[in-house]
């Protein structure tokens, strides 16, 4: 009797899961859709999983921009969101679905550089423009002519912060710490080394740590004995905050120059007073005295009831740039024209400053070098 029930239940379960699958696979519409007169943009974002906070910020920035663009009415944009879970295979599936099932005009995203390395060649081969809004490692736009990014690569941001810090604090010898199991941090470390060499700053020592480490006393004790003029750190904000705390505890009160991982309000929240003296280069500076920035922050707060971060700001600008190119291309379906117009975008004045694509489809834009002072990001002058 019980056996029979089990069998029925199993059969039922299998039937349900099969039905779900078949339902999910149904429906294909060919040729870029233009039913509503809106240009269909796909978005691949890290919406669930450990890094969902980044993906969520990006989604909100994009949605805010979409609503503004559609309200203006020059062009209409429809966003199709797909989750990548921060995984390569999921991102590949998402990209394939967006291109071949939803027939999107262009793709925004993905969130992680590793995802872009996996989908970029395929998307480029299909001739679909793709723009990363949060990719900072080297070699992204080298994938192909259809690959763009509006996020500042670390190779452009870090030298700025080191140069400005050198001028301000008269740096002669420094120590470096970086997370050796994080692709962003390793890439950042390489840039730091190169910049220090170019600037003629002596490297006293290099210490490594790993993501999710919580104890940095061994590395920092060593660094403290070297008496550097500053410490360069490449990592994510979680570890960076702990490093700052421990460093101050050990009496290392020199400036700490960070990579893009430092670029988060969370850093100040977690490190507290220890964050003072942290230096980072950022395209996004919420304290900027610019009506555009103020309006963006106010609108974002009104809609999502929180402060926009760097990811939201960059995503917002990215879609605005897309809209400019879309308007100039005059077509909701022509991917090639859109690519040409995107590459030609210049003099866009966004919330992250003046923007243009350089010849390699990387952003050519101003960088703000920020320093934490009394628990707030302020411009380092």
């Amino acid at each position, binding site marked *: 009797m019980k056996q029979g029930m089990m069998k029925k239940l*199993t059969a039922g379960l299998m039937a349900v899961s099969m039905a779900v699958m078949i339902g999910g*696979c149904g429906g294909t519409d060919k040729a870029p859709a233009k039913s509503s007169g809106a240009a269909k943009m796909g978005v691949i974002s890290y919406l669930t999983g450990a890094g969902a906070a980044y993906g969520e910020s990006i989604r909100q920035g994009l949605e805010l921009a979409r609503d503004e663009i559609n309200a203006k009415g020059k062009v209409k944009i429809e966003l199709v969101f*797909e989750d990548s879970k921060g995984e*390569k295979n999921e991102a*590949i*599936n*998402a990209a394939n679905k967006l291109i071949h*099932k939803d027939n999107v005009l262009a793709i925004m995203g993905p969130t992680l550089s590793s995802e872009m390395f*996996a989908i970029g060649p395929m998307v480029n081969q299909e001739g679909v423009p793709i723009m990363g809004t949060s990719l900072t490692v080297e070699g992204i736009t080298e994938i192909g002519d259809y690959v763009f990014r509006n996020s500042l690569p670390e190779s452009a941001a870090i030298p700025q912060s080191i140069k400005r810090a050198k001028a301000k604090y008269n740096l002669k010898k420094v120590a470096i710490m970086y997370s050796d199991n994080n692709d962003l941090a390793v890439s950042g470390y390489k840039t730091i080394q190169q910049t220090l060499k170019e600037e003629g700053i002596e490297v006293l020592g290099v210490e490594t740590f790993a993501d999710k480490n919580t104890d940095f006393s061994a590395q920092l004790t060593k660094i403290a004995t070297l008496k550097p003029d500053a410490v360069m750190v490449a990592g994510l904000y979680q570890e960076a905050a702990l490093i700052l705390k421990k460093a101050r505890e050990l009496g290392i009160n020199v400036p700490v120059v960070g990579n893009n991982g430092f670029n988060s309000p969370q850093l100040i929240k977690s490190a507290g007073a220890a964050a003072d003296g942290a230096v980072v280069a950022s395209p996004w500076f919420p304290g900027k005295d610019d009506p555009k920035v103020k309006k963006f922050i106010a609108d974002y707060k009104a809609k999502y009831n929180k402060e926009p971060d760097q990811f939201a700001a960059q995503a917002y600008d990215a879609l605005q740039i897309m809209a400019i190119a879309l308007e100039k291309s005059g077509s909701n379906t022509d991917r090639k024209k859109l690519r040409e117009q995107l590459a030609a975008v210049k003099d866009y004045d966004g919330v992250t400053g003046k923007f243009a694509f350089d010849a390699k489809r990387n952003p050519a834009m101003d960088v703000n070098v920020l320093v934490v002072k009394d628990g707030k990001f302020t411009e380092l002058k």
Partner: protein
Amino acid sequence: MEFLLNPYYLQMAMFIIINAILGLSMYLTMSTGQLSLGAAGFMSIGAYVSALLTMKAGLPLYLAVPIGGAAACLLAAVIGLPTTRLRGIYLAIATLGFGEVVRVVILNLKVTNGALGLSGIPSMSIMMSKAFIAMGLGDGLGPLSVRQLGNLSVIVILALLLVGLILFSVRLNNSRLGRAFAAIKADEYAAEVSGIDTRYYKLLAFFMGAFVAGIAGGLAAHITFFIGPKDFAYHRAVEILLFAVLGGSDTVWGPLVGSFILTLLPEALRFATEYRSMIYGAILVLMMAFRPQGLISEETIRYWRTKLLAKKAVQQEEISGGTN
């Protein structure tokens, strides 16, 4: 036809076949009752070795992938000799640890490009497309474009490989080797007393699993353009284990069904957006609650076989009854 040729579905088919091969690798090791969580580690060895061989040494794929598998096998010898003495959960923990060690080593090597991973790995379908163009099929064949031809040929190659492996596994079951595996799985001590060299057979199963996982890794690297250490973290090991647990590890078909469902399910659930992972998790919990032995067990196969045979018998009786 148009529907089936959509690159989205072709890509999914590739992932399904790769995962099915991984499921088989799990089955091969589990057929001696060994619970190994090293598949992700062996997969990463296969992936990195074959990717480096095609990228840096310019080796053709048909050589690079088997060499990747052999490298995984070699490492299985290093790890297998001491660990196959372990049983049950202890082996699981040791192999899980091994997977993490491999990942950390890859993370710190220069040749693997550390945390940045290897990008720009030559893609199998582009290679095939180029081969078709060289054969003078640049304009495609009939209604098929050259890119579709490339994708389809990759699927055919992968499918042939999978069918070969399935045949091998089925054949194995009925061989002296398979009987020894089954005996060890049922009761290791009894098997040893009956004169089976349990250590030899357990190692052999471990090697076979590692080789197949290495092959799967090499193939996966050449259809995704990019591999990084993050792809082979412990969650990957658990995912591969799930193929066997959900599908059932008693028969060859269990892990195959498991990998098929678990690869398709996340894609099929895309319409549910944020709820996707929740529904996925709920389905797993339900499956485990109602089918702890996995979807396909030996009883399932026996049940359907007798049912189908009974039906045939009834039909035949009816036919013969009709002529009377």
